[in-house]
């Protein structure tokens, strides 16, 4: 059968969500952000909540989220996404609110906002992209940068004695009574993306049922920051990032899932 007989509207089985705008992503080639951003749009489209959702795009590689989505988005100052989300949610409890934050935004400058939004069990979805580096500003050390990992602000590798240890924040957040669902996923393979999509769907369903804070951490690559090709970066991530940030659920239906909350020894 000729290709042009296959490529017909009735045979279409997959394409970019209609909630995505036509703007080209500002993400680097092969960046996990693109997959994560698109997967969220697919979940929102499938749940049919595009007219009731407000996304929060803070400062970081995610800063142009409002250019990519065809639903309401509010720009937040660096680190303040969870506070902005709280401000929206408190006057519009029936709307869906999600934040989309990087590791610097959520676990460095925004630690206070993140910790307390979770401690209040703010009924929002927090999507947390953990790629162990500050991408937008060109590859500086982040709270989640691994020991010995090189960045422009630890060019000889992160020295934990002077620069602190890699911060696994989601296990901490999982222990706050306000959080209902805390999971760590990735998007470097189709199987992983499907699991992430399921997790995101669960998170938004939790929000619909007013269960409290749901956090979907997505361990991801940063090709330009790590100085690797996308495929090599994903491989490096699986070997190094997953060791420090093991994938899996940490909290389900409000109950801690202890077995892999902590680093696998």
């Amino acid at each position, binding site marked *: 059968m000729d290709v042009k007989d*296959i490529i017909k509207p009735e045979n*279409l*089985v*997959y394409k*970019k969500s209609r909630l995505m705008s036509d703007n*080209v992503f500002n993400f680097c080639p092969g960046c996990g952000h*693109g997959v994560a951003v*698109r997967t969220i749009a697919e979940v929102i489209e499938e749940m049919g909540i595009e007219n009731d959702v407000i996304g929060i795009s803070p400062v970081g590689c995610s800063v142009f989220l409002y250019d990519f989505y065809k639903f309401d988005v509010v720009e937040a100052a660096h680190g303040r996404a969870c506070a902005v989300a709280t401000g929206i949610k408190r006057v519009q409890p029936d709307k869906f609110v999600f934040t989309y934050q990087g590791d610097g935004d959520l676990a460095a400058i925004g630690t206070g906002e993140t910790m307390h939004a979770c401690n209040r069990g703010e009924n929002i979805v927090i999507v947390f992209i953990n790629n162990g580096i500050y991408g937008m500003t060109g590859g500086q050390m982040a709270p989640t940068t691994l020991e010995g990992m090189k960045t422009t602000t630890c060019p000889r590798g992160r020295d934990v004695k002077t620069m602190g240890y890699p911060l696994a924040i989601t296990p901490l957040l999982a222990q706050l009574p306000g959080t209902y669902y805390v999971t760590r996923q990735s998007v470097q393979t*189709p199987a992983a993306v499907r699991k992430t999509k399921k997790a995101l769907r669960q998170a938004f369903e939790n929000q619909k049922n007013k269960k409290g804070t749901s956090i979907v951490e997505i361990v991801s690559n940063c090709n330009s920051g790590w100085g690797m090709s*996308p495929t090599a970066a994903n491989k490096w991530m699986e070997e190094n990032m997953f060791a420090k940030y093991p994938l899996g659920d940490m909290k389900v239906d409000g109950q801690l899932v202890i077995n892999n909350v902590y680093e696998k020894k």
Partner: protein
Amino acid sequence: MAKVVGAISVDIERCKGCELCVNTCNQGVIGMSSKVNSKGYHYAMMVKPEACVGCTNCGIICPDGVISVYRTKVEE
């Protein structure tokens, strides 16, 4: 016996040549074109179209969502 066949279409201008689709497709359908788009990226294309079964893995993994996947059945 009906056989599943598939095909992909690539938004060439928006492909950033990251090759994740090439390495994700376990049928070896996708390769990088020798030509480049207006941004100077070599873009993805079907190099072995007959092997495609329309599994959508490439579409899912593409960070920029430039791949649309088609699938149908055909009598052998």
